[in-house]
């Protein structure tokens, strides 16, 4: 039985700490934080190995999309702060 615990924990930590995973845009930044946390929580209780593999593969694919997307969105940051960021 393959355990992904250490990898999952490291991905989780990287997702929340790394600047390259954070959008300059307020709404997208908050959504990404909430969705990743909830995504990990929802899959925490999976026991069926094939489902666990599926979830892990999906998470890795989403990570690639996220990094590429954040890189692109950071090239076009908003010119003024959002009211919520004051």
């Amino acid at each position, binding site marked *: 039985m393959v355990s992904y615990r250490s990898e999952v924990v490291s991905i989780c930590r990287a997702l929340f700490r790394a600047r390259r995973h954070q959008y300059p845009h307020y709404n997208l930044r908050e959504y990404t934080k909430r969705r990743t946390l909830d995504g990990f929580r929802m899959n925490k209780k999976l026991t069926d190995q094939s489902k666990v593999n599926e979830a892990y593969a999906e998470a890795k694919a989403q990570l690639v*999309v996220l990094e590429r997307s954040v890189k692109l969105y950071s090239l076009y*940051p908003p010119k*003024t*702060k*959002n*009211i*919520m960021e004051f």
Partner: protein
Amino acid sequence: MASKVISSTIRRTLSKPHGVVFRRHHLSTAAAAATDYEDESIMMKGVRISGRPLYLDMQATTPIDPRVFDAMNDSGINEYGNPHSRTHLYGWEAENAVEVARIQVAKLIGASPKEIIFMSGATEANNTAVKGVMHFYKDTKKHVITTQTEHKCVLDSCRHLQQEGFEVTYLPVKTDGLVDLEMLREAIRPDTGLVSIMAVNNEIGVVQPMEEIGQICKEHNVPFHTDAAQAIGKIPVDVKKWNIGLMSMSAHKIYGPKGVGALFVRRRPRIRLEPLMNGGGQERGLRSGTAATQQILGFGAACDLAMKEMEYDEKWIKGLQERLLNGIREKLDGVVVNGSMESRYSGNLNLSFAYVEGESLLMGLKEVAVSSGSACTSASLEPSYVLRALGVDEDMAHTSIRFGIGRFTTKEEIDKAVELTVKQVVKLREMSPLYEMVKEGIDIKNIQWSQH
């Protein structure tokens, strides 16, 4: 060593979370403060706001989801061929991409990919459906049934048909916004060619009883068209269960790009229509013209995402709607929700505030991007026709505000919206002599105003 320091400082400045502001240290502090303020705030149409307002107008349009944007980029850059070119790789690649998107859209609504026609948006789809079906059957069918709360494009198409000689019945709605099924049953005649009722209303957010309406249309063998632009990806939509013949869809309401939509045209039993766009016969002859590959891909990706995220988003948005309504109701009285509370899509909240003047309320809510049903947002002086169809009084219709909650809305934004709305309404009510009279117990409707 120095170059490393310089490059790290540049990297740090450029990766700031908000817009880059370079402070000019050589100016005096007062002048520096003035320039900084001018740099950071926004001045538009004579109004100064300190930052970008919080966005609560999801029924008007939604921001593109970054995952959808990402799906559009690779294909948009590399697969630039015309999907209708049959002779080379570029055409084949583009055609594959469009077919993948077609399957994604079809899966969301429970249809077959052959029944989806891509268009430039829900307005074009509505026009094609209403005018196309009636023109095709113009020898035998002369009657169209629709409701008074439909979208402007459907109502305008029906008016156009009336000028051509067709007859249109505009069904009234009950005070909660729902269609009366008995009235619909009675209105159907042997020469009725189309029934057009939207699934989720864009102004008040009520969900019509689609299954029952579909059943009635099936009994009488009348094609059922619905404008589902606000419904797909938000409530579960099944064209078989609802017995739908034609359905209009729009991409920019479900976190997709603007400029693309689709029309579902049932094949079994076959619905025939006359195309609006004539040309090379693309899209089964119903919509000629080169397919906008990049936009269509975005639409497909948005539908795919919406199918996966529907449950999660619904739970989040419902929680936010309750937070908004309870937050406002705790601090204010005289708040009315327009439209049925039970049969409603949770992301749309249309509130009317009693004893408050509509335009001044909107002028004070510049830091929240909301929409309203009052005169100042429409070209004429009349309040919204949807609210009038619900039987809402003129003064309540003028103070209506539509809050649109979506996938990207946060709890803090809702709290801030509640705070700003309550502050503005309280301020206006304090100034209002009508409210004073109501507080003393005088019934406003029974006052005999004296003429001066």
